[in-house]
């Protein structure tokens, strides 16, 4: 009985639209009138559509910017704050820095985008001003307006945005690690880097998995940064899957095709989610429930 409101809500607002969306993906539909059943035609179209591939390739770039780089930086930064700064300067300084690095995650993405557009602005933006000041003015250019640099610029912004998340999680994880293990490693003559690589990383592996899988899903779902920074442009240089389907839905009324792209994206995400669930179940079996 207590489950009823939640499940009804869930069925009406998530399951139902989800199924309708899949059905629409097999049709040609302008958003008005009757959808025309076209079977797999939309899927065939997607496979041969270069914009479709650009979008997903850009999602891959975002995985680099939001998963791989932040996880690595986050690991080192967390270990550095935890092993070094907190011992030399105390917990207050440490949590001050932790909070500072987490700030980008709390700022509304709209504000982030506005500020970054200024940083990258061609005439007086921070990047170009800096380049000119150190005599590299020839490197200054229109970062977001050039197809070659638009995506790397967004990636840089996303690294900045994302760092705080792995940092906070890894620092919490490190508190779980028994300091005696490091002392034992040090006694055996292990350097800091060795003990970091073999002891720390091994022990906080569950958190590393969680961070990698959740940030991958976030990177696949990215919409606001792209919409705010470039609207997918110049041309289609910064299209991502979610923006591509949004555009088909609401800007060019190609609803059927938009639904197809959304469905393909969903399938990929659900696959990653299943891996995530399996990893969690496995960890619970291995180590028992904790936390």
């Amino acid at each position, binding site marked *: 009985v207590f489950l009823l409101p939640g499940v009804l*809500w869930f069925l009406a*607002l*998530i399951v139902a*639209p989800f199924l309708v969306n899949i059905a629409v993906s097999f049709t040609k539909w302008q958003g008005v009138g009757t959808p025309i059943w076209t079977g797999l035609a939309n899927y065939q179209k997607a496979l041969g559509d270069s914009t479709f591939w650009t979008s997903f390739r850009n999602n891959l770039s975002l995985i680099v910017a939001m998963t791989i780089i932040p996880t690595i930086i986050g690991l080192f930064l967390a270990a550095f704050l935890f092993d070094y700064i907190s011992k030399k300067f105390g917990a207050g300084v440490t949590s001050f820095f932790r909070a500072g690095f987490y700030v980008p995650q709390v700022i509304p*993405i709209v*504000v982030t985008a506005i500020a970054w557009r200024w940083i990258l602005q061609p005439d007086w933006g921070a990047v170009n001003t800096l380049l000119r000041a150190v005599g590299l003015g020839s490197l200054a250019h229109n970062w977001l307006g050039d197809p070659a640099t638009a995506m790397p610029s967004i990636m840089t912004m996303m690294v900045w945005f994302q760092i705080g*998340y792995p940092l906070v999680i890894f620092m919490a994880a490190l508190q779980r690690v028994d300091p005696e293990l490091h002392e034992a490693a040090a006694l055996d003559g292990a350097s800091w880097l060795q003990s970091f690589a073999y002891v720390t990383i091994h022990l906080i592996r569950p958190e590393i998995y969680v961070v990698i899988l959740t940030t991958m899903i976030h990177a696949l779902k990215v919409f606001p940064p792209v919409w705010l920074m470039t609207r997918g442009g110049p041309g289609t240089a910064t299209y991502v899957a979610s923006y591509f389907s949004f555009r088909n839905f609401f800007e060019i009324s190609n609803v059927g095709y*938009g639904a197809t792209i959304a469905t393909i994206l969903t399938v990929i*995400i*659900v696959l990653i989610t299943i891996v995530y669930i399996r990893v969690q179940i496995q960890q619970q079996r291995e180590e028992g429930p904790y936390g």
Partner: protein
Amino acid sequence: MAEGVGKYFSLIALSVLLLVMLFPLYMVTINSFKTEEGYLATGPFRLSTNLTLDTLKTTWKSTDYTTKFLNSMAISLTTALLAVGLSLFSAFALGIGKVKGKVLFLVFFLIAVMLPSESLVYPMYYFFKLVKLYDTRTSVVLFTAAFHASFGTYLLASAFSAFPRELIESAVIDGCSKLNLLFRVVVPISMPTLSVLFVFFFIWTWNDLFTPLIFLISNAKQTVPLAMALARAEHNVTITLQSSAALLGILPCIIFFILFQRTLTKGITAGSIK
């Protein structure tokens, strides 16, 4: 001696990194208080001696910030309350009551959390238009709450399965009804977890751009982030005005962040490792 130097060197390096991280925030803040002339004279990066509150006031008026703020408040509060309530009931059934197929339910909820909103949004858009809920704040609340409640159910159910069983059993023996059990025993004890959820739902809803973008079209119903995103597109908006709009958008979040820093840190961790 070398030890001491290295110690401060590392602190300085870390501070420089932090400054780089906070640079965009600094830019937004200083430019919000400049006059138009002050901005032209100093550029975007230096402080101006000519500070004013007028820019902020103008922005406040031109974006009708009061309305946007109240919209955001109303939407975020109701969504967070509703989502916490829904999660509480579902998680009570799944985590404490005995429901068949519990794991399956949880897997479904977790997958729902991960779904991209693009895969749901068009049918909802069409449906809301059909039932005349399109362009109402209610539509945003209904849709967002469903997502958040899925996450909340998933998280709370695992928190509840670690709930001390003796407490529940003794309450049941004392003839406690299920509703009483929920509100007299479970809710008071899990208040910390519930408040973490509430804070999270509030911030997520507040910062969400996609859902309001799709469902809210009239100016009077838009939220703070959406109004800011759309304000940028208007041509007569100067940098200082944009800047102050951005500052007005940040402030509620920063205040919230400072107030709930501890709760949040706890929550981020709880969300990842269940």
